């Protein structure tokens, strides 16, 4: 299917059916990518975006894991913290941007925080639901063996919640890429989002498409790595691998 679309795209561009100012040919996009690679612009842009993504993702995952673990394991903590988090969740994440810029400035901190906010919610929600929905029968095994609530959390609830957590990580990763693009579009001097913005401002759609391709490639590779790691983490699951949600 992608090859068919590529063929149609190239055909339409070669026949002049679409203006190059709207949709440049795949060959032009590839040449742009090659030029970016040769000049070092690609490595610099991918590096800057990936670093923001890595820091934001790590921050979001760390916060979601600590708070999700706490709320999943303790009813009191859930009653105290979860309503606030659910209320914050209903605020569209991009609406935080002005506040982050006011608080943290226009540079890296606000962008990383925005990515972290995007990553936080799916990871948190999946972890809380994973821990809260652990089979009562397994918890009873812990009770019979005299496990304390903390030991039950560490030995039963968290391992049992791993499949749900992995799903949350993958959703968070997808949102993280979305938010890093948004953050860079809103004001950056480097990164893939900057190339998108620059391509639009200077009327060079081939640069926009090249940056989109790189975003897609980065997203796909990181998701593949996470899926691979996740599959190893929950390899104990007795599921049809071909249909598994973590595959």
């Amino acid at each position, binding site marked *: 299917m992608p090859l068919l679309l590529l063929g149609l795209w190239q055909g339409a561009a070669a026949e002049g059916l679409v203006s190059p100012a709207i949709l440049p040919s795949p060959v032009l996009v590839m040449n742009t990518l090659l030029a970016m690679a040769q000049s070092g612009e690609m490595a610099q842009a991918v590096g800057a975006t990936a670093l923001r993504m890595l820091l934001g993702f790590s921050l979001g995952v760390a916060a979601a894991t600590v708070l999700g673990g706490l709320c999943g394991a303790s009813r009191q903590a859930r009653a105290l913290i979860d309503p606030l988090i659910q209320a914050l969740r209903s605020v569209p994440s991009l609406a935080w941007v002005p506040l982050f810029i006011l608080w943290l400035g226009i540079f890296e901190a606000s962008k990383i925080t925005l990515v972290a906010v995007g990553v936080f919610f799916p990871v948190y929600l999946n972890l809380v639901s994973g821990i809260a929905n652990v089979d009562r*029968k397994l918890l009873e*095994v812990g009770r019979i*063996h*005299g496990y304390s609530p903390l030991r039950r959390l560490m030995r039963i609830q968290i391992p049992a919640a791993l499949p749900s957590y992995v799903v949350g990580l993958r959703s968070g990763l997808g949102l993280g890429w979305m938010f890093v693009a948004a953050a860079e579009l809103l004001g950056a001097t480097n990164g893939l989002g900057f190339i998108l913005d620059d391509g639009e401002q200077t009327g060079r759609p081939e640069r926009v498409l090249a940056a989109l391709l790189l975003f897609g490639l980065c997203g796909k590779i990181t998701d593949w790595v996470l899926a691979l790691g996740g599959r190893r983490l929950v390899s104990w699951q007795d599921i049809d691998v071909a249909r598994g949600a973590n595959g």
Partner: protein
Amino acid sequence: MAHDINISGLQKSYQNKSVLGPLDLALEAGTITAIIGRSGCGKTTLLRCLGGLEQPSKGSITIGDGHLAARDIGYVFQEPRLMPWLTVEKNAWFGLAHASSSERRQAAVEALGVVGLTHAAKLLPKELSGGMAQRVSLARALAPRPEVLLLDEPFSALDPFTREQMQEHLLHLHRHYGATMVLITHDMDEALALAHRVIVLSGPPGIVAGDFVTNLSKPADRTSARFFEWKRKLTELLSNRSSEPEALSDDFTRRRTA
């Protein structure tokens, strides 16, 4: 040393609906007691109360001198309830969280040896058959060397051949560990083959309808006339065709009938 179990005035209700009791029972240390009865008569509730998974609504349960550690009670559930992320070996030592790693390993190796699963130590639960999984759950309950072993229809999901094998395992284990065992079962053959004492519950709410010491050899000869006679009598009692256990022949020792 195995513990005796004393149940006094035990009652359990859910939302003001009585499901069990009042029950007064004294189970001797080191014996196997089978509790049989129809579905819903409160057998599992009784066992869950004994295991501390349910709090009695009234009455009390005293095991031994009343000062028990978690490892003093083993519980085998109707389904294996293995932790799917742990290997067989780690599932077997799941009840030994407080022990040193060498102690845990040794206890797991021993318990797996007793249930004949040493070769499967590194497998995951998903790689086990139903019978193997249930044997692992038995090993998990045995590894801490409990003084009291509670078994809730542990073999009901198994095919007849595996079930009989597991019953033999259980008797072997009883000889090996000498724990006080309480076995919940629907299966009269199982109750008679394994238990020194059979308690019949009727209900709900579950009350004692019959309480017998069988005096059958262990393992019982399932083809003997005495075995068949016991089975017939228990069937009558369970199906309410006989409300007079006094009618049992002199061969049988009747302890108490409520």
